[in-house]
């Protein structure tokens, strides 16, 4: 029996290694300094760690700016998704109204489409509106990706908060708006922050729409994609590491909400 258990734990460990070792390799490549670049065979653990390669990469014209633009786009996308998604989710959770199901269906329908591809025809309209090649334009497109998710998840968040609390607030003289802000929101805040973080990661990671809708003001993903064919591998790996670090941190922050959110959002 204990032999079986040991085999089982070994299996778990192997899968953990399958996930973690590739992450280690790109970090070792990006942080291993000059020696690692041309080394053959590659050392699995670099002799020394240095930030030289990463620094060089960041010093390339446009890289640091692309990072800032990536962050700006993701923050805008987060704000839009939360501002538009929360009220809609609240309506779905608290009211029965004609069209509620049609709205739910419309939101679900977007998930059967590769939304990023819809950026293709937007270029013309965006040029006309002055949105092409701006962080705002990319953020709007990314919000179309993140909003359905924000609506569905916040609906289930609000559903989990007892209606009685709100009604009590009304009795004590709060307006419905005050009750929603002062009573419901504090309770929903952890879930809402998870929604926000997810919107941020969706936008930070998106490549296609960001590439199509920008020319000079590129996000980090669009910048990396554009320079793939012309830059040395080391810089590509440094860029990859920069892409990865915030995502891993954010997923760590929302790990507790992940399953509740997907259990609901996928029903």
């Amino acid at each position, binding site marked *: 029996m204990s032999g079986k258990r040991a085999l089982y734990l070994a299996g778990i460990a192997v899968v953990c290694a399958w996930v973690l070792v590739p992450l280690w390799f790109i970090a070792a490549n990006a942080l291993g300094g000059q020696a690692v670049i041309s080394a053959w065979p590659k050392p699995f653990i670099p002799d020394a760690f240095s930030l030289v390669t990463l620094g060089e990469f960041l010093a390339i014209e446009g890289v640091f700016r692309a990072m800032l633009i990536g962050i700006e786009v993701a923050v805008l996308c987060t704000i839009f998704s939360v501002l538009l998604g929360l009220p809609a989710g609240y309506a*779905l959770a608290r009211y029965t*109204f004609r069209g509620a199901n049609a709205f739910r269906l419309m939101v679900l329908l977007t998930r059967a*489409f590769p939304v990023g591809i819809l950026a*293709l025809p937007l270029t013309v309209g965006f040029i006309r509106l002055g949105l092409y090649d701006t962080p705002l334009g990319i953020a709007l497109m990314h919000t179309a990706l993140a909003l359905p998710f924000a609506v569905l998840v916040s609906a289930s968040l609000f559903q989990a908060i007892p209606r009685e609390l709100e009604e009590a607030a009304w009795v004590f003289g709060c307006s419905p708006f005050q009750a929603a802000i002062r009573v419901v929101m504090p309770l929903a805040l952890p879930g809402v922050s998870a929604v926000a973080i997810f919107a941020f990661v969706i936008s930070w990671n998106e490549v296609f729409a960001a590439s199509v809708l920008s020319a000079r003001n590129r996000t980090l993903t669009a910048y990396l994609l554009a320079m793939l064919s012309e830059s040395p*591998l080391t810089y590509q790996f440094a860029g990859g590491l920069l892409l990865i670090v915030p995502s891993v941190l954010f997923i760590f922050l929302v790990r507790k909400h992940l399953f509740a959110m997907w259990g609901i959002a996928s029903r």
Partner: protein
Amino acid sequence: MRGRNLPYLLIAPAVIFLAVLFFIPLVQTIALAFETRSGPGLGNFVRMADDLNFHDAVVNTFRFVGLAVPLQLAAALGMAMMLRHLGKGRDLVLWIWTIPLGLSDLAAGLIWLAILNDKGYLASLLFHLGIVSEPQSWLTYESPFALFVAVVIAEFWRATAIVIVILVAGLQLVPKEYAEAASVFGASPWRIFTRITLPLMKPSIQSALILRTVLAFEAFAVVIAIGGRNFPVLVSEAYNWQNFNQEPSVAAAYAVVVMGLSLAATALWLRLLRTPAEQRG
């Protein structure tokens, strides 16, 4: 009166937003794809199909989706079942397994490029094992099969995580009593899995398959990171026609094909894995 309109006021911003940034571009994409100089027609689709890369792109896309998605589902099912018997440390293991969930396909492509490039870590490992003595250039146009395998591995590594999350969330909704009862009556673990657990997980398997198939049809950065332009797929061709050939209407034709495939796949999964109304919880 105000109270009755309130829900509509609350959903209005989201509805308007989705109308402007989802439905309008959707219609525009289709219109653009069917628009030619001599009026509406299939001209853009003909140009798309006549292109040298089109055939490869179709074949590669289908092979990629057809292999990556079932692999992800099988692995995620196995991993979700493994987690059931883990007591302490379950949260930590689950967190580790879901790390790739937050990564873009571009990042996953770059990670596997670090491993599989000519002086990469796989070649180094083979060197240490005495199997090869020189750097190995696998990822070139001369070895399309190796490119294909590399792209599938990268996508498998990255996107299995989201399937695990959906399946584990679904598994939490499955009462343990059924499996316990079957066990009491002497059913083997495999039989319990195939006859009880799997059917009860159908709704979450269905949503995982829909999500993954749509996103796999859309994957392109991983392909470009690993194969450059040597492993064309439908979406990377759409990207090339838009950005390099400056032909938005042919790119739109590709987009229409991808959308059609995504919808067809969604319809297929909805039909194949339908849960009868009386079985819904």
